[in-house]
């Protein structure tokens, strides 16, 4: 037909020839194990949301061309929501919107195109929930905010641009020798760590002083996909990549010996007491969590997660007692015994949980869930590990909770939805317009989900 078809065909054929499938027996074994662990516990009658308890679960058959999961698949544009304390106490100006004593935050929505020239940050004041003038950052890669909320670092090309949140204006770019991907700011706020390197080449982590915005000596370390976490005292960074986690002394910026964790790390979280770093990730289709003692930097016994094959997220409650891991369900891990609890099924059959955020009071874990039903954010009571009624926000939600715990912001493909954590009801969606029209064409859903 056309050259386009030929080009695509050759491309696909190359990849098809080099495809290396697992033995079918392994696939079946994985599947059977998952079936036992996830399906059967659910049938035993895990507590379900009251509102959904009597809803008959549809038996779905997919003959022909009905594609069950298509609605969830629309993701190229990514929205990252970061909340920053602006230090401002809500004044009399817009007293009608929120209680007078509420702290006002700015939620920055990071818009990644395409097209790349639509990339940037959209500031939204929580006082009015209306977007302000966007800050354009063409070809934006990583984005991170300092703990004091005063500076946002964004990567683009070989540079990192500091943006003052007081003025929303970009500062002088910081130059690097290779392309910037992830940025993470240490808990002490003194250093931003910038992952650089060509995608296929070796990657390095460059410490940047946040006081002077000058880069230090690059640290050679196995890092992949920006998996990095800091101890609460800011003295150690844990960096994941290539089956290992490497501790980095943030005072001297020297890496320690890589700790083998037996899987590809996808997320790391350190307990509030700083004693344990939990590393989650997958090997093939097996997902595990590995507790690493920060005192000795030795890995504990891997905790097997029921779903497997995931690129999991982990969040730890403020009291440090429970770690929640999102796989195909949500698995609570008792951090005292390092034993996994019964997986908490997300509300819709076949739905997959994604990002997770826990309120500052530790009472509720919110999980962005997609597929198997309308994409939603599902609240989980940490006291009972039961799910509440799903909050419908739209496809592909990325979530963040304000530091006061009052509002959850869910960023989706074309809007940001504020959700009251007191009532778990979505507020008026904040449309993302104007300079980010490019995102609209990426929405794959049919009729918009209400709410």
């Amino acid at each position, binding site marked *: 037909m*056309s050259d386009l078809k030929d080009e695509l065909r050759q491309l696909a054929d190359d990849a098809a020839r080099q495809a290396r499938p697992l033995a079918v027996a392994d696939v079946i074994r994985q599947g059977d194990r998952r079936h036992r662990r996830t399906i059967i516990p659910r049938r035993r009658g895990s507590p379900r949301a009251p509102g959904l308890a009597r809803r008959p679960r549809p038996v779905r058959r997919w003959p022909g061309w009905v*594609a069950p999961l298509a609605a969830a698949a629309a993701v190229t544009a990514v929205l990252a929501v970061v909340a920053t304390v602006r230090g401002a106490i809500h004044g009399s100006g817009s007293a009608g919107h929120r209680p007078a004593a509420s702290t006002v935050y700015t939620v920055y929505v990071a818009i990644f195109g395409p097209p790349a020239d639509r990339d940037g940050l959209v500031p939204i004041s929580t006082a009015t929930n209306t977007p302000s003038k966007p800050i354009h950052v063409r070809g934006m*890669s990583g984005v991170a905010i300092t703990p004091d909320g005063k500076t946002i670092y964004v990567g683009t090309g070989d540079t990192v641009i500091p943006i003052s949140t007081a003025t929303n204006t970009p500062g002088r770019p910081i130059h690097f020798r290779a392309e910037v991907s992830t940025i993470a700011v240490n808990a002490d706020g003194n250093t931003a760590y910038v992952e650089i390197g060509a995608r296929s080449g070796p990657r390095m982590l460059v410490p940047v002083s946040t006081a002077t915005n000058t880069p230090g000596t690059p640290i050679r370390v196995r890092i992949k996909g920006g998996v990095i976490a800091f101890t609460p005292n800011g003295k150690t960074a844990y960096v994941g990549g290539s089956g290992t986690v490497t501790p980095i002394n943030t005072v001297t910026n020297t890496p320690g010996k890589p700790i083998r964790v037996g899987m590809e790390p996808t997320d790391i979280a350190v307990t509030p007491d700083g004693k344990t770093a939990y590393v989650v990730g997958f090997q093939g289709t097996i997902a595990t969590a590995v507790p690493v003692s920060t005192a000795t930097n030795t890995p504990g016994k891997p905790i097997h997660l029921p779903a497997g094959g995931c690129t999991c997220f982990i969040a730890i409650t403020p009291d440090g007692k429970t770690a929640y891991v999102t796989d195909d369900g949500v698995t609570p891990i008792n951090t005292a015994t390092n034993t996994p609890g019964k997986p908490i099924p997300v509300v819709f059959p076949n739905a997959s949980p*994604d990002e997770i955020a826990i309120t500052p009071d530790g009472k509720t874990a919110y999980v962005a869930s997609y597929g198997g039903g309308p994409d939603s954010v599902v609240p989980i009571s940490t006291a009972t590990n039961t799910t509440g009624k799903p909050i419908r926000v739209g496809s592909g939600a990325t979530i963040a909770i304000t530091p006061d715990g009052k509002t959850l912001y869910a960023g989706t493909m074309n809007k940001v939805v504020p959700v009251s954590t007191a009532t778990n009801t979505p507020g008026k969606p904040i449309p993302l317009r104007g300079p980010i029209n490019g995102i609209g064409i*990426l929405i794959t859903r049919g009729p918009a989900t209400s709410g």
Partner: protein
Amino acid sequence: MDREEFNGFYAATFPRLVGQLYAMTGDRAEAQDAVQEAFVRAWVHRSQIGTGRGGEAWVRVTAWRIAATRWRRAREGIRLMLLAAQPDHAAGPGPDRVAFVEALRKVPAEQRRALVLYHLADLTVEQIAAETGVRPGTVKARLARGRAALRPYLRETAAPVRE
């Protein structure tokens, strides 16, 4: 679907689906991982899917969803993964191919997905609409925009639209 049927289905469709997912995602390792995981889920849900084209579509949609999730999770690396990714050297592509791959990676994912379903999976616009959950008009628009974006890299792109 019993074990033997699944085995046949797996062997017959795995490489093809990896090829399609590669063209959709622009990342070979990602494509392989996503298809692999989708087949594990296919075994779990085997009672609900068949071994025919419906089964293949199920695995493809699931693999796409898995790949899309991973992009989102690696959100800070997304631009590296999708737009600035270096061409794979394993295939030893010529300069023209490199330019085409680069161009393809710059096409928005849903347009690329539509192009792949249309040209590689040989689906009709209606079938693509069903698989991607949008209206046929949207599929046509995506195909047109995707082709327009790639036109400079191709000698000739006039292709009649199957209905």
